[in-house]
């Protein structure tokens, strides 16, 4: 969960309003929902940190990181993965981007009446394989069944805990003017894999989700001793939304170079075809890193040395900006804002 833009123009209509799909898109509408419904009632110093996971004090002076993530992906199986491995990776990554070593996972399942057991087994086996590969076991769980029509096959919520070594401070609030912005690889692979599958687009070269656990890569980056300020995985809402969250939290502006953004040709083509912008398409195995400019090259080299970071790129810089705009120099030679996503990204008709 993230801190968000403070000045909403119109407050939510808590009497007659309803939840619509925009409230789940990761953009400004969701940020408003979190602020006005959840944070206002549940708020405390830890929730108020506004990062992907909360840093908590532990007995003996240590610190824990706790994060949770609900998974409702449809289709349940997609090129490159399924809801099972996604549920492991998503939460492991939310813990890891705080700089913590993920240790344990909890998983709760909401199953719909009539769901094939064979599919459930496939999903759980995939979860088991992902958890084992990540070295983060599922240690507790819960199962509920809802009537047919009251769910969408399977929903999985996972919660993870990890320990944060002393002295490590990573947060969306720590980006500073002058910092460099890096991304660990190509943008939009997961979202377009899902979209292509959902719309039965049948592209000749299938787009494969990038779902992966990032704590290995993050461990390598931390081991360099570089001056890292922010790590985050740009999932729902894509890189554009994630950078806006960080700009807001840190009270800074950013300038990206469109030419430097890594996007697979197949993803670029699919986005073009559907009228979408890869900057706002979800990733499930990518990392944004913001660090002191002097360390950018070393960090980039460390990323590229890891199998999950081969296509890493330096994509922009942080600067002072009272408006907290994320801007971009376009490949065309102009300038534009990379704004928050408003509502779901909807295809244009022309």
């Amino acid at each position, binding site marked *: 969960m993230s801190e968000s833009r403070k000045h*909403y*123009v*119109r407050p939510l*209509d808590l009497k007659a309003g*309803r*939840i*619509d*799909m*925009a409230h789940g898109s990761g*953009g*400004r*509408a969701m940020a*408003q929902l979190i602020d006005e419904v959840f944070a206002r009632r549940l708020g405390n110093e830890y929730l108020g940190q506004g990062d992907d996971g909360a840093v908590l004090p532990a007995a003996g002076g240590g610190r824990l990181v706790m994060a949770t993530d609900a998974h409702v992906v449809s289709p349940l199986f997609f090129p490159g993965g399924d809801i099972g491995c996604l549920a492991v990776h998503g939460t492991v990554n939310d813990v890891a981007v705080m700089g913590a070593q993920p240790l344990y996972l909890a998983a709760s399942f909401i199953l719909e009446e009539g769901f094939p057991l064979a599919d459930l087994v496939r999903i759980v086996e995939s979860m088991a394989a992902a958890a084992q590969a990540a070295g983060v076991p599922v240690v507790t769980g819960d199962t509920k069944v809802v009537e047919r029509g009251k769910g969408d096959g399977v929903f999985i919520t996972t919660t993870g805990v990890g320990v944060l070594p002393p002295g490590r401070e990573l947060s969306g609030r720590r980006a500073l003017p002058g910092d460099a912005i890096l991304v660990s690889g190509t943008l939009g692979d997961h979202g377009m894999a899902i979209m292509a599958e959902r*719309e039965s687009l049948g592209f000749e070269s299938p787009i494969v989700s990038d779902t992966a656990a990032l704590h290995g890569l993050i461990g390598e980056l931390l081991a360099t001793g570089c001056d890292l300020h922010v790590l985050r995985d740009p999932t729902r809402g894509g890189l554009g939304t994630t950078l806006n969250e960080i700009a807001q939290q840190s009270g800074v502006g950013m300038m990206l170079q469109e*030419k430097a953004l890594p996007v697979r*040709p197949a993803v*670029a*083509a699919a986005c*073009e075809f*559907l009228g979408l912008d890869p900057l706002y398409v979800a990733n499930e195995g990518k990392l944004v890193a913001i660090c002191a400019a002097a360390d950018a090259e070393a960090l980039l080299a460390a990323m590229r040395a890891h199998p999950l970071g081969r296509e890493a790129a330096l994509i922009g810089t942080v600067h002072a900006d009272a*408006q907290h*705009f994320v*801007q971009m*120099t*376009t*490949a*065309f*030679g*102009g*300038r*534009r*804002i990379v*704004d928050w996503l*408003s*509502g779901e990204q*909807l*295809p*244009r*008709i*022309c």
Partner: protein
Amino acid sequence: MKYIDEYRDGETAQKIAAAIRAEIDPQRRYHFMEFCGGHTHAISRYGVADLLPDNVRMIHGPGCPVCVLPIGRVDQAIRLVLDHGVTLCTYGDCLRVPASDGLSLLKAKARAGSGGGEVKMVYSSLDAVALAQKHPEKQVVFFAIGFETTTPPTAVAIKQAAALGLKNFSVLCCHVLTPSAISSILESPEVRRWGTVPLDGFIGPAHVSTIIGSRPYEFFAEEYRKPVVIAGFEPLDVMQAIKMLIRQVNEGRAEVENEFSRAVDRDGNRKAQRLVGEVFEMRKQFEWRGLNVLPYSALRIRGAFAEFDAEQRFAAAYRSVADHKACECGAILRGVKRPQDCKIFGTVCTPENPVGSCMVSSEGACAAHYTYGRYRDAG
């Protein structure tokens, strides 16, 4: 991406920008209207304005399909969902257009449910036909909006539904005509009588022109002495068209020129035109957002296909609804005001809570300026 990146190349853009600087007369100002939302989007998305000299100003035109859709038409679609329990299929753009009672199709979608109505986003009119075929128990209505580009696919859908003998498919037809909108702007007092909207020429539509050809614009060039350059939707197309317009203005010409010759010819797509003529006929009048009621500016379904006309099937009458008082969408669509001239721009009216339709689609002048260009206003 092959065949696309070539039209977005930064180096070529610099060359055209240099050619434009060499072409302009520094003593005068140039005001060009890009008719289409597709051009508006390209200009904002790629930062084309940053490559233009200060004395060349682009005015955003009304060619954004959802922007010109009046509230009453969205209300009609919402009533079909909530009162008649239909499955409404719509292009994604329409979902967030604000309607009466604080509703939009997206909010109606969240509110439907018990009444059986639903709202589905489709990429093609034929997806709606396929849905009707698959679910004979549902009444499927396709919300058909847009200019000449989207009209032939709607005609195909109706003919296919007829061939399949579908009894549960119909179309809420809100298709509008580009030349009527251009006439309306050229005839507006701001342009013709008072001259408060200086207009030196048009960038003509890209996709619309593939259907109707370049011929319909000849009248505007001759009658109103305004140059028209038809251009593709890529940023280099737009730059090149601006250069061609500047040259015409400097030479005192007012002609129709075609920058988009890779897709547009003088006659357009005759097969599509025939198909449209077979299924649709002119409405005597149609209300547009911003341009008011324009005579012979939109299409309705011919009597021969009346059973596929949702307005008749569900006796859904059109009721005109006034725009929000503070909303300047009308003036913005006519080029009279800029988005940042509107008092509620970026404060009350934002992409999250659009008051006017221009703030909805990324092709809308307000949404394009808000999403891509508002750093300019921040100084």
